[in-house]
């Protein structure tokens, strides 16, 4: 029983080398397929997200990253 748990840890069954618990079951970005048609709220969100991320990029270039 104890041996089995050891193996699980080594192979990523429970905890993996970076210290996190196994995340192999979690979806990846590519598993989320973008919709062909967006609702009005989502269209607004798309535009606002793009603008916010662009503003962040510009601030990083001008002032450097300061929030991490």
């Amino acid at each position, binding site marked *: 029983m104890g041996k089995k748990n050891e193996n699980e840890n080594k192979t990523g069954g429970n905890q993996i080398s970076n210290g996190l618990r196994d*995340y192999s079951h979690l*979806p990846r970005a590519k598993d989320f397929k973008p919709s062909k048609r967006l609702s009005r709220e989502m269209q607004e969100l*798309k535009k606002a*997200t793009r603008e916010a991320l662009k503003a962040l990029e510009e601030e990083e270039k001008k002032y450097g990253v300061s929030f991490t």
Partner: protein
Amino acid sequence: MAFPLLDTSVFPTYKKQIEKRFEFIYFSTIVLYELTASSVDQSTLQKYERWKIALNKADRLLTPSMNDYWVAANAVRRLRLLKLINKNLAATVLQNDALIARSAHTHDCFVVTENVKDFSLLQKVMPKLEVIPAAEFFS
């Protein structure tokens, strides 16, 4: 399917990827706070405000409740008692990460982060917390 909730650490490297999957990603008011508090230009502040409104309208913004603060504080307390963090560190250490972690758990999300060290620590006292490194998620 569970949905991704982004930690602030993801933003410097993965902007394009975030934009591409924006409709499936959840954001925390904690992250919005960190981005806003560290911004400089007035125009950036205005864009963040529009983003906040749009996120809220689209139901993509998660705000910790009173109980989330309580559970997050208890989690950090346990880390201290287990001596997994230094007892002399400020009480606000890990506060934001713990709140993001708690929000993820209560909304059936998993955390996407570059800050694996702190979130792996939180997993020790938040057994249901799911975390994936950003490089893995966006690969």
